[in-house]
């Protein structure tokens, strides 16, 4: 039986691709590098859009990356049910690409903020959270400049009503995110985006905990090996 293949996209300016790939491997899958300029998903079973500053985050975080050739494939794949995880800049890219509702704007404190935060799992049914239970708490790093989740009021209530808020900051959103939202999912539950970094919480030596690992394990369950 061959391992599940999880693609990790690199854009110019992507930073956390090495960590995302490491997390994928630690979870027991094969990490497949994907290049922004290739319109080719190389047959992967799932995709991680990692963090960083794609294209310097110039114009708007994630805006330019969302137009890359690989993203057209990701959008098509997501429509077919391909599990897609966006972390930090990846979350911003998925919002800009229209795969997830809302947008991420400048932190309320207006500075870059690097902190360990506690998240609560609000939906353990998505492709990326089925290894958690609702109400689980994760200690993981948040590090972003434009991490404040915002959406139109009716979008927010729709998200609340349909249980699509996957992660919330337990102790209040340090960046001022609406409704304390740290991560959301699409209607089908295969696309998830979150601002904090589960890939930096997979080894207690270099991160605050190993609480992030279950995201990468979750996706193994949903994918036929």
């Amino acid at each position: 039986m061959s391992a599940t293949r999880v693609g990790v996209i690199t854009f110019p300016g992507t930073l956390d691709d090495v960590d995302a790939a490491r997390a994928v491997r630690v979870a027991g899958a094969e990490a497949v590098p994907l290049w922004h300029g290739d319109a080719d998903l190389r047959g992967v079973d799932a995709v991680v859009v990692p963090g960083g500053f794609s294209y310097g985050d110039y114009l708007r975080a994630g805006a330019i990356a969302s137009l890359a050739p690989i993203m057209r494939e990701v959008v098509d794949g997501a429509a077919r049910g391909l599990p897609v995880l966006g972390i930090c800049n990846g979350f911003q890219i998925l919002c800009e690409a229209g795969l997830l509702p809302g947008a991420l704007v400048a932190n309320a404190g207006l500075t870059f903020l690097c902190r360990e935060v506690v998240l609560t799992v609000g939906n353990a049914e998505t492709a990326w959270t089925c290894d958690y239970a609702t109400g689980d708490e994760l200690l993981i790093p948040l590090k972003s400049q434009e991490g404040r989740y915002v959406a139109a009021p009716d979008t927010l209530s729709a998200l609340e009503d349909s249980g699509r808020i996957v992660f919330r900051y337990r102790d209040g959103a340090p960046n001022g995110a609406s409704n304390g939202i740290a991560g959301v999912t699409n209607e089908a539950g295969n696309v998830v985006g979150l601002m904090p970094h589960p890939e930096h919480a997979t080894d207690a030596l270099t991160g605050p905990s190993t609480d992030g690992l279950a995201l990468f394990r979750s996706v193994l369950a949903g994918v036929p090996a």
Partner: protein
Amino acid sequence: MARVVVDVMPKPEILDVQGQAVNRALGRIGVSGVSDVRQGKHFELEVSDGVDDETLHRLAGSLLANPVIEDWTVTRL
């Protein structure tokens, strides 16, 4: 060749934290009489004459602004 300006502003319902920071700083530099500051982006484009308004609007709405959170205006000079 024509010069086109696109101004992009946060939608009223999105909290404009940058504008608010400027508002708070007004007192510090001793300026009074300014009751509100909102901050957005200003783009100056050089476009060839064949580019029509529709193209400019598409450019503004799909690249320069994010319609989920921003409004924009396009002005030919």
